């Protein structure tokens, strides 16, 4: 035990100085989902399958627009899996905390190349 302790005197600490040093997530990490509205056909599958009612759908069919409630999202990736046209992708974003629930609703609109409201982080 003593030897183990002394060995660590010369080692670099295992912890990271978090806000300054970040560990990149692995490939395939399930982070914040985004909708590609150019592909979306409005089939409602993602809206129906979501276990935590995080996806809100406004309008129907090809006019449908989405509100993603980040505060309710489980990041399970079921919507990505269920989407028949692969319009949903899970990004590698993981720093999604916010002081305000209202700021955690992300809208995905049809026109203007799927304008996406930036999320206020920190």
């Amino acid at each position, binding site marked *: *035990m003593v030897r*183990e*302790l002394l060995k660590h005197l010369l080692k670099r600490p*295992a912890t990271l100085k978090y806000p300054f040093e970040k560990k990149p*997530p*692995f490939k*395939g*990490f*399930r982070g914040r989902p985004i909708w590609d509205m150019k592909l979306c056909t409005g089939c409602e599958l993602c809206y129906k*399958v*979501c*276990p*935590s009612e995080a996806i809100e759908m406004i309008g129907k069919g090809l006019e449908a627009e989405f509100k993603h409630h980040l505060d309710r999202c*489980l*990041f*399970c*990736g*079921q919507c990505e*899996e269920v989407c028949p046209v692969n319009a949903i992708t*899970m990004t590698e974003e993981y720093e999604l905390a916010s002081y305000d629930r209202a700021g955690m609703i992300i809208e995905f609109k049809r026109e203007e190349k799927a304008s996406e409201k930036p999320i206020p982080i920190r």
Partner: protein
Amino acid sequence: MSYPTIRIPFGPQHPFHIEPEYFMFEVDGERVVGVKPRIGYVHRGIEKALEDRTFIQNLYLIERICGICSHAHTTCYTQAIEEILGAEIPPRARFIRTIIAELERIHNHYLWLGLAAHEIGFDTLFMYSWRDREIVMDLLELVSGNRVHYAMNTIGGVRRDITPEIVEKIRKGLDALEERMRYYKKIAMTEPTISKRTAGIGILKPKDAIALCAVGPTLRASGIKRDVRADDPYIAYDEIPFNVITYDGCDVISRLFVRCDEVFESVNIIRYAMHHLPEGKIRIKVPKRVPEGEAVSRVEAPRGELIHYAKTNGTTKPERYKARSPTLGNIPSLCKMLVGGYIADIPIVIAGIDPCFSCTDRMAFVNVNNNKQWILSGEELRRYAIKWYRKE
């Protein structure tokens, strides 16, 4: 002559355990003479909620019964539903489930070792084992895409495949994990302060263990060879050779050794499974509606036997779903272990069964979100506090 006893509350908030649980101890000096547990503080009403959601949605709710044994819970759930459906999942999916299950066991035992070390005040060992736990968490993230809620299981198979590169990385990680656990076992055997605090503490005789229906490593540390993986093989355990670890010390250090040795077994199981990983599909398509039926499904979660009972009625939602986690099964024996011990030994004895109270409390349902009177916002809380202080 009898002395007056004092009552010492442990919990609902107490630094010995992160989860809110309440034990009222009757104490005579430093000796515990009585104990009364009260669970239910993290009661989220999952069983009622399950009846209100579709089978796919339930998959993710079930996963959230517990943060550590999330894979065990979903394995149990998918097994039950697949049994009712009569679906046979592909062999590759079974092996992948096994690999994740064993990685989860390694993760849980590392976590437990750190917690146990912390309970007896050995902070250095706590830091080391949690640092090394990071290796297995990284592996799980690599395989599944998340550190805690792996979401690997789905009804009819698994959602992600394990590629050869991942296999290589897991192999490397396993070597490191095995070596570190060997070292920790050596420390536990040689370090006198550890054996002083854990040997002969929290005795659970085999007779009591059976009568009080103990499960998992707690039971195996009392010398009873009972493991769902061997007795009632599920997923790929009937094709993989492994040993059931038992120790007959009946005390906390035996539970420690059981968990250490189980890590070695798990490492071997994963190596075998990765070597014999069959080719083929990883999932099959299953219908949304589940026919009427019922099934009992059992899984050896890292903490012990997990049993789920499912009853379906031919719709897309279950009629009744019951989950019983290992901790609930171990609480009666825990009370038995605690009586007669010292106050100082309470934390390590409670930690000895590896309790997970989130798993334990999960039943009826009050939707707190829609029920404004049940929650206080930050502003309300502040006002409440000011009012309270004015009164003083």
